[in-house]
């Protein structure tokens, strides 16, 4: 009779995960037992502290070496993971600060828009404090996703990350119909794509006999790149991942969801989810399917080019600020993909990874900042998202407009902003991998993209303010902190990027453990 030896789990290494998930569960308990009026008072510190604690643990982990695969090789706690964790946690904290302004969330999701009960829910200043545990679960998923070292964990992480977000999308206080529609679209398409992900997993399992990345990587050396199952699996798996980062032709959901979702949630998705998704994407393609490089590289080239162009070109004619930012995030996903295909020898990979990590930080923070500003430009019907309403903002609120312009310039990649160095790092890596055509397309896309960023600046500063222009909401302390932080980070990363770059390259040193 053979007894099953108990699994070994390095709790220290997965501590950040445990903290976040633990806090999430605790949050649910709070929802269950704490009186309504107390809930927020409990949730806020709980959420922020857990995230902060997780961050501290991550930093502490970073100082511990060597990093390796934890929990029976299911979770890889290596340099990139830790860096991505740090990034996600920071972005999560910032996003939570935005979310804490509950004016964004519906009092009672089940109430019909415009119905009596909604009225009373508003008058009662009811709020869905479930938001906080949901966010924590989502963040937990985001942390697990890039760390997961086998496809099953990754699938679970994917769902843990996505399901709460589906719900959060539907909780906007105003424009409920749009919000619900966004949730529905995100949910159906997300489920659809995860089905592809799962199918790919199945096929790869069929090829390798295991879903562990290590095993798959080894299997590749046996079967080689000619196996149809293998290629089909890679492709469908890739579809699931590319959907999450919103690469063309899987980008369709992004503008609708970003527009419909409550802006703080959009901020979280646009920053945290993107970072997590790229972490996972890198792990799958570089670690598990690294041996298949020569097969998937050309395909990703195509996807990258398509994504950059679609994002940049479609954004030009957008009239809704959030939609525009969604397309801009598609374009940036394209730029990041350029870094993903810039693989080569170990040194080259390190450079590419460094660039990617830096880019993710720079872009994530700027994005949260941008959406934070969006939450502040409001009129009677809530946020004033139509671009025409932003005309002359520079005159009415010079500081706010200036900061937003800063974020836009960072997106456009103007020197002395974080965005520029991010772009540079990625393009340089691509150049190092001799992907010059890709670089050329990338810069052309950047030039096109620059147009709509510049256009917003023109609107804000050079055109006359609309007669009944939007009012600038007095930012809550938390929101102002977010904006200030993001702005500062954008400038600092643009002028003295060395510390972060250093961290990134150290993180990239170990590359990915297998």
């Amino acid at each position, binding site marked *: 009779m053979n007894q099953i030896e108990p699994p070994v789990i390095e709790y220290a290494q997965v501590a950040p995960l445990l903290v976040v998930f633990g806090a999430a569960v605790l949050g649910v308990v709070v929802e269950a037992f704490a009186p309504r009026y107390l809930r927020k008072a409990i949730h806020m510190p709980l959420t922020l502290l857990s995230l902060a604690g997780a961050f501290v643990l991550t930093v502490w982990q970073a100082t511990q070496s060597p990093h390796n695969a934890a929990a029976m090789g299911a979770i890889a706690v290596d340099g990139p993971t830790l860096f991505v964790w740090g990034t996600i946690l920071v972005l999560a904290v910032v996003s939570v600060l935005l979310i804490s302004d509950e004016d964004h969330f519906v009092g009672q999701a089940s109430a019909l828009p415009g119905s009596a009960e909604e009225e009373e829910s508003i008058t009662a200043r009811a709020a869905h404090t479930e938001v906080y545990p949901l966010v924590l679960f989502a963040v937990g998923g985001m942390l697990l996703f890039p760390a997961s070292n086998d496809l099953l964990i990754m699938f679970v992480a994917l769902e843990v990350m996505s399901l709460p977000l589906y719900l959060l999308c539907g909780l906007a206080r105003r424009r409920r119909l749009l919000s619900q529609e966004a949730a529905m679209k995100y949910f159906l398409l997300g489920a659809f794509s995860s089905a592809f992900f799962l199918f790919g997993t199945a096929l790869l399992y069929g090829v390798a006999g295991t879903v562990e990345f290590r095993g798959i990587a080894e299997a590749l050396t046996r079967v080689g790149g000619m196996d149809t199952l293998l290629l089909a699996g890679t492709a469908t798996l890739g579809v699931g991942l590319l959907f999450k980062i919103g690469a063309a032709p899987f980008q369709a959901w992004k503008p609708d969801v970003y527009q419909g979702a409550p802006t703080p949630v959009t901020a979280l998705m646009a920053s945290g989810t993107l970072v997590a998704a790229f972490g996972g994407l890198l792990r799958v393609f570089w670690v598990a399917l690294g041996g298949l490089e020569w097969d998937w590289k050309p395909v990703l080239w195509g996807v990258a080019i398509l994504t950059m162009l679609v994002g940049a070109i479609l954004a030009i004619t957008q009239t809704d600020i959030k939609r525009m930012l969604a397309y801009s995030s598609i374009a940036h996903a394209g730029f990041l993909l350029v870094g993903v295909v810039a693989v080569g020898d170990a040194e080259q990979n390190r450079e590419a990874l460094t660039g990617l990590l830096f880019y993710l930080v720079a872009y994530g923070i700027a994005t949260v900042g941008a959406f934070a500003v969006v939450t502040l430009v409001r009129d009677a019907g809530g946020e004033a998202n139509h671009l025409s309403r932003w005309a002359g903002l*520079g005159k009415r609120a010079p500081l706010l407009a200036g900061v937003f312009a800063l974020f836009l310039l960072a997106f*456009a990649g103007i*020197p002395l902003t974080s965005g520029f160095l991010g772009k*540079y790092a990625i393009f340089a890596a691509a150049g190092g991998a001799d992907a010059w055509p890709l670089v050329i397309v990338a810069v052309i896309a950047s030039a096109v993209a620059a147009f709509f960023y510049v256009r917003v600046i023109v609107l804000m500063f050079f055109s006359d303010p609309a007669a009944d222009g939007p009012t600038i909401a007095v930012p809550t302390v938390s929101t102002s902190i977010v904006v200030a932080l993001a702005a500062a980070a954008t400038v600092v990363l643009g002028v003295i990027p060395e510390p972060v*770059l250093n961290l990134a390259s150290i993180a990239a040193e170990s590359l990915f453990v297998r």
Partner: protein
Amino acid sequence: MPWLSTLMAVPAVGAVAVAAVPKRNETLAKQLTFAVSLVVLALAAVMAAQFNPGGDRLQFTETYSWIPSFGIHFALGVDGVALVLILLSALLVPIVVLASWNEAAGTPEAPAKRSVKTYFALILVLEAMMIGVFAATDVFLFYVFFEAMLIPMYFMIGSYGGAQRSYAAVKFLLYSLLGGLLMLVAVIGLYVIAGKNTFLHTELIGAITDPGVQRWLFLGFFIAFAIKAPLVPFHTWLPDSAAQAPAGAAVLLVGVLDKVGTYGMLRFCLELFPDASRFFTPLVITLAVIGIIYGAIVAIGQTDIKRLIAYTSISHFGFIAMGVFAMTTTAGAGATLYMVNHGFATGALFLVAGFLIQRRGSQYISDYGGVQKVTPVLAGSFLFACLAGTAVPGLATFVSEFTVLIGTFQNRTYLVAAVIATFGVVLSAIYMLWLYQRVAGGPPSEGVKSLGELNGREKWVMAPLIAVILALGVYPKPLFDVINPSVTQTLSIAGVTQDPEPTLNVAVQRGAGQ
């Protein structure tokens, strides 16, 4: 003492200070700006006095590591060429400040969108960057300034320009940005292919040997510079920007910013890619000559004073580019001096035109006539500027134009080019004098009768310009002494060891100096 970084720091700090001035107290902001610019001028003068033409190639060098991960240094240093251009900027800025004293207030039909102090703060920011771009000896640092310079100018045009300002500003920014991004690709290529892990210009000289590669990189740099300079056919942004920008901004734009293009050709194209430069020279010379004639002809046909001046500048930039690529020390030195003189001459033209336009409230030549009868001094200064524009002997512009032409002629290969270019001298007489005739000649037209004479401030704006143009026209030697060695070095790097010998060299035979 770190001269160059001081030169940059002073205006930068000054800009912050000016921006900090309370909004109501505009005069203080202006005075502060003026004071700062004077300090910069003084510093620059002292520095120039310490420059030793016979000494090292680069002087006042400073090198600090900026982004080690990318091998980027904050490296400054000037040779003769950079020095004179820095002097040009330092001298023009106070003049522009003085000239723009009441301009930022905006014209009746196009009221300025933003505070006056911002305008002056922007001027100082721009000055810091202009000095930086000429002083940078690190290719990446140069690029950073090259791109960052666009932003303040973008706001100056967009916020304080004429009726079409947004269109002009966007066109200006996107056009330059596109060029800049192409250059970014070349910069990356330079870094990757040279594989020296440094951007220090001196290190990179001779680093690229493969002529094929050189050509691609050359194109990357050259197109950016050709857009900046601007050479036909990349010129159409200039007339719009110059016509819409307030006179002061126009002076800095055409007088200094565009010089970065021709300076870059001399400093980067020739030195980093000598073979490619020689390969492309015929093309460049052709473009330049086309630009000279074409710009002049189109200028003749303009109906808007500022557009006309812009086109004359396009013609003049043709001369400069031709001189740079004529590959003789004579033409090179001439071209460099041309950059300086053109700054002053066009500056004078734009400023006087600005005075006229401010008084008459119209940019259309047809709205003028008989000005010299009403305001002799204003008309006199205008005439002087026009004469400088058509390179009349005794004025600085003549020296440089003649030198460029004779230097190009010297290179037998481009004899025809030189001959055609020389015909530009005739055309310049037509566009300048016809402009003067239509504006100042004939009986005073309605609306001109009431124009006021130059006031004290405006006289003080013109006086230094006129003085400099005259002085450099009669005694250009000091500048040549500084320029000659640098140009000779540049050309020797580009593989031009000595100018073509005259068919029978009397000078040598007789040993006479001339």
